[in-house]
């Protein structure tokens, strides 16, 4: 930030030393680059990002902004193209994923951008760069769920709860008194079973699935 404010004079007042601390530069010192655009455009669904002329029709009609503050497909595209990677990660990484694929943007885009696909591609781009760090509960649950489906072809209720708590580093919480008593109640009322059955020959399907998803 603000390397060039060392000798800053405004209205004849020299704003060095302690004053400088109060006046951080508002200029974006960003290592802007088209590198990210280059990456996104090569991802599945990302190629039409180049067509965007920033009209805002997508954001103007998007389903999400009524519910998700600052969700803005036009801006995601803009940040990628301008190479404002830090802003994309710091302010938008938790938003991009929330697109509900309603396709309003794509149907209305006057420029022929497949906006929904581009938003997806940007999310994938961020995921590939591992910017998400610690998983949110939702994301952790999704992952555990998918892993289990691929591995066993079905969901084992007890196992998924255990894996979910372990993935979010909260195995201790699972053993708390109220969780245990809830689990016991569900077990005795037949809501959950202790051991799920196995699906015949799932191993082969599982193998193929894993190969496909590679």
């Amino acid at each position: 930030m603000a390397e060039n404010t060392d000798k800053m004079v405004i209205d004849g007042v020299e704003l060095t030393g302690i004053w400088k601390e109060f006046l951080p530069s508002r200029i974006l010192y960003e290592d802007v680059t088209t590198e990210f655009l280059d990456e996104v455009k090569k991802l599945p669904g990302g190629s039409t990002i180049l067509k965007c002329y920033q009209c805002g029709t997508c954001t103007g009609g998007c389903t999400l902004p009524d519910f998700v503050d600052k969700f803005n497909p036009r801006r995601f595209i803009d940040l990628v193209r301008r190479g404002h990677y830090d802003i994309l990660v710091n302010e938008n990484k938790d938003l991009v994923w929330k697109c509900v694929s309603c396709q309003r943007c794509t149907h209305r885009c006057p420029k022929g951008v497949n906006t929904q696909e581009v938003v997806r591609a940007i999310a994938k781009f961020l995921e590939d760069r591992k910017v998400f760090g610690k998983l949110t509960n939702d994301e952790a649950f999704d992952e555990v769920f998918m892993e289990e489906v691929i591995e066993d072809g079905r969901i084992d209720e007890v196992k998924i709860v255990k894996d979910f708590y372990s993935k979010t580093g909260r195995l201790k919480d699972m053993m708390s008194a109220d969780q245990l008593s809830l689990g016991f109640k569900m077990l005795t009322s037949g809501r959950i079973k202790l051991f799920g059955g196995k699906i015949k020959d799932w191993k082969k399907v599982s193998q193929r699935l894993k190969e496909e998803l590679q």
Partner: protein
Amino acid sequence: MKTVLVIGGGVTGLKTASELAEMGYNVSLVEKEDYLGGQVVRHKYYKLAPDLRLAGDVIDPVIKAVESNSNIKVHKHSHVVSVSGSAPEFKAKIKNSKGETEETFGAIVVATGFDHFDPTVKQEYGYGRFKDVVTNSEVEEMLNPNGPTKGELKRPSDGKVPKKIAIFQCVGSRDRQVGNPYCCRVGCVVSTKQAIEIKEKYPDSEVYVYYMDMRMFGRGWEELYGKAMEEYEVIFTRGRGAEVTLKNQQLSLRAEETIMDRPIQHSVDMIILAAGMAAGDGTIEAAKVLGIKQNDYGFLAPKDDFLSPNESSKSGIYIAGADKGPMDIENCIVEGAAVAAKVAGKLKN
């Protein structure tokens, strides 16, 4: 001395005809409607951008120059139905309700102009569904004291003067969804002009223009844009109109305010769609009858855009004005004069 056939009696065709006639050529001017003046007269343009001078001050002398020149034969309500032969001797059949005549011409000039884009297909804007969503050409008619509302801007739904008015730019232009990726070239200046006219007449009204770029490249256009902001307090918002809905009986628009990075919902009393220019049916008809080339959007294609801008793909057939693509009146008049000079030079030798 050879006779020239001019097809289309808009400002371009009129200028072409009168210039040729002044040079001593005989002209047959064929116009499909029963009036001369083209879109300017059809939609009763009142004041012209950028000077806000009366449209009549421009179009009336051009019409008069044609009607008062005995070298020009005007065929109103007529069509050219077939053309045979080649330069410099064409035979054309001209048809009207009374019958068909055949005449011989040394050259043909096509000045069949454009049609206003019909915004019904842009369903999200609600034109045709919501009465108070209107087009810029309907506004031209309203603002004319001799128009349907006697010069008052009135909401079609209840006849009241709207207080808050939004204008959507680029309707049917710069839009691949409708197959018109080109810029309409006049929408920006026309909307700015209309905003000023509205504010001048109704100082208490509020006018909001939703745009992507304000393209103000013509003579005096940028100055008009400045005037709209500074003197008339027209509000220009950078964001293309996304949709129009009805909320509690009031029109409500959505767009993104791109400078603020957020969508806005805005309640207004009337929405004007700056509908662009499309190749007209008359132009497409003429291209077919004459067998001349059109571009991807239906407009007439010059033989060479740089080197022979007024020659069609066929020798002896010339093109001028808004049938080549969106064009303002000033340039149409230049085109009319240029094509007349070109034809005169060709027929001389």
